[in-house]
C-alpha cells in the first residue's frame, strides 16, 4: 500500500513538473502596431508585464549604446531594462553635449568627441528624452523598461518578443508621438507555449513638431 502511495505521489510530481515546464516554455509574441489609419508605426516600444506577480523580472543588464551620427541620435528610440547602462559614443567629428531633463534620469555629458563619455546608469523606469546642447534639433529617447520582456517595432510596424515564458501578460505600447497615456494602451493577453502568438495594436498618434534642423529663422538661432 505504501509503495502504491509513493508511486502515486511520484506520478503526480512528474505531472506537475511537466505542467510547470510547459507553462515556462519559451514562447514568442509578435505584435503589429498600427495607427488609427492602419499604417504601421515604427519606433513603438512593446512591453509585456507578467500578470502573475510571482514571475521573476530579473534579467541581465548589459551595457547598451546610443550613437550620434550626422548630428542625430542613433537609434532614435532605445529600449533597455531598468538598471542597464548606456554608452553615448560620438561618431561625428565634432563635439556633442548630451543631456536629459527627464525625471526618470537627469544627466549631462560635457562636450566630448569619440567614446570619451562615461556610460550612464538608468536605475529608474520611465521615458528619458535626450538632447544635445549644441545642436538643438537632436532628440532621442531612452525607454527604461520595468520588465525584461520588451521589443521595438521596425518600419514594418512589427515587434517580436522572443523567449517569453508562456502565461498571461499585460501588454503596453509606447511611442514618442503617442496621444494619451501608455496605460491606456494596456491589454491582457494569454501567450501560449506553442508557436508564435500574434497580436495587433492600434494606437492614436499626435502630430509632433520637432525643433527644425533648417528653417528661415535658423540664422538667428544657430550657431
Amino acid at each position, binding site marked *: 500500500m505504501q509503495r502504491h502511495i509513493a508511486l502515486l505521489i511520484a506520478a503526480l510530481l512528474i505531472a506537475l513538473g511537466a505542467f510547470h515546464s510547459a507553462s515556462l516554455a519559451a514562447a514568442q509574441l509578435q505584435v503589429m502596431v498600427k495607427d488609427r489609419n492602419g499604417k504601421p508605426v515604427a519606433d513603438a516600444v512593446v512591453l509585456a508585464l507578467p500578470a502573475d506577480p510571482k514571475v521573476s523580472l530579473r534579467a541581465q543588464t548589459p551595457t547598451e549604446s546610443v550613437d550620434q551620427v550626422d548630428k542625430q541620435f542613433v537609434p532614435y528610440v532605445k529600449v533597455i531594462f531598468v538598471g542597464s547602462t548606456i554608452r553615448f559614443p560620438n561618431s561625428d567629428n565634432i*563635439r556633442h553635449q548630451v*543631456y536629459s531633463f527627464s525625471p526618470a534620469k537627469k544627466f549631462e555629458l560635457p562636450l566630448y568627441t569619440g567614446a570619451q563619455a562615461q556610460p550612464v546608469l538608468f536605475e529608474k523606469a520611465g521615458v528619458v528624452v535626450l*538632447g544635445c546642447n549644441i545642436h538643438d534639433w537632436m532628440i532621442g529617447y531612452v525607454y527604461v523598461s520595468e520588465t525584461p520582456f520588451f521589443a521595438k517595432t521596425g518600419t514594418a510596424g512589427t515587434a517580436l518578443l522572443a523567449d517569453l515564458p508562456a502565461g498571461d501578460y499585460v501588454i503596453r505600447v509606447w511611442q514618442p508621438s503617442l496621444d494619451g497615456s501608455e496605460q491606456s494602451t494596456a491589454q491582457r493577453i494569454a501567450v501560449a507555449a506553442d508557436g508564435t502568438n500574434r497580436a495587433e495594436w492600434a494606437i492614436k498618434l499626435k*502630430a509632433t513638431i520637432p525643433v527644425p534642423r*533648417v528653417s528661415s*529663422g535658423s540664422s*538667428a538661432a544657430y*550657431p
Partner: protein
Amino acid sequence: MPRILALALIAMSTLPAPALADWSVSAAAQARYDDNVGNAHDYGDQVSDEIFGATLSALQTLSLSDAYSLSAGGDLSGEWFDHLNGLRNAALDGVLSLKRKWGLGAFAPWGRASLSVGRSEFDDSYRDFTAYRAALAAGKRVDPRLNLWVEYSFDHNAAAAGETVEPGISADAFTANGHRIAASMEYAASAKIFLSLTAFARRGDVVSTVQSDEAIYPRARAIEEDPALGEDAYAFRVIGNTYGIRAGVGYAVTEHSLLGLAYLRARTYAQGADYMKSVAEINWSYRY
C-alpha cells in the same frame, strides 16, 4: 569683381580646419522683384528690376564651454540685375560671433554679439563699398513651434567719394551709417512648413536716387552722380527713419534644404524725400 573672387579663394584656402569645430556650409539662391531699387520718392523716378542672387557661406563654430561658442566664417555672394547692369555686384563678407546660452537645451535663452566686415564691388565701381557691422542679438525658443529673437545692429558703409556735384556738399553719397532694431518670430505650422515675420526699424543714412529734385537738395548730406540708375540720376544721402515688415513662408524640402517665399514692405520717412519699397522674393537654401 575678379578681385572679390580672388580674395574669396585666398580666404578659403587659409581657413583652419580643427577637428572639433562644427562646420556649417550653406548655399542659397534667390530671385526677387524690387519695385523701387533707387529708393525714389516720386513715382516717375522709381525704377524696378528683377534681381537674381546666390550666396555661398561657410561658418566654423567652436564650442568653448557649456555656455559659450565662437563662430567665424564668411559669405561669398553675387547679385545679377536684369536691367540695371551697373548694379550687378559681388560681395565677400567675414563674420566673427560669440554666442552664449543661459542653460541647457533647445529652449534655453541665448545672446550673441557679432562683428562683420565685407566688401561689395559693382559693375559700376563708383558704388563699391566696404561694410562694417556690429550686432547684438538675443532670443528664445518658446517651444518646438515658436522661435523668437530680437537684434540691434549698427552698420557703416565706407565708399569713395565721387566728383563734386554741388559745391559745399559732399560727393560721398554711398558712405552711410545706420542703427537698426528688429524683432522676429518663426512659427512651425507643421514639421515642414514655417511662417516667419520680422518687424524692423532703422534710423540713419539712406540713399535716394532721383533724376532731379530741387526739394531734396537742401536736405542732402551728400550728392553723387548715379548713372547706374539713369544718365541724369543723382544719389542723395539723407537722414531717414525706415519702418518695415517682412513676412515669409518656408517649406522644408529635405532635412537640409528650405524653399521660401517672402514679401517685404518698408516705408522710409526722409525729410520730405519719403519713399515706399516692396520686395517679393522666392528663395532656396541648403545647409549642411
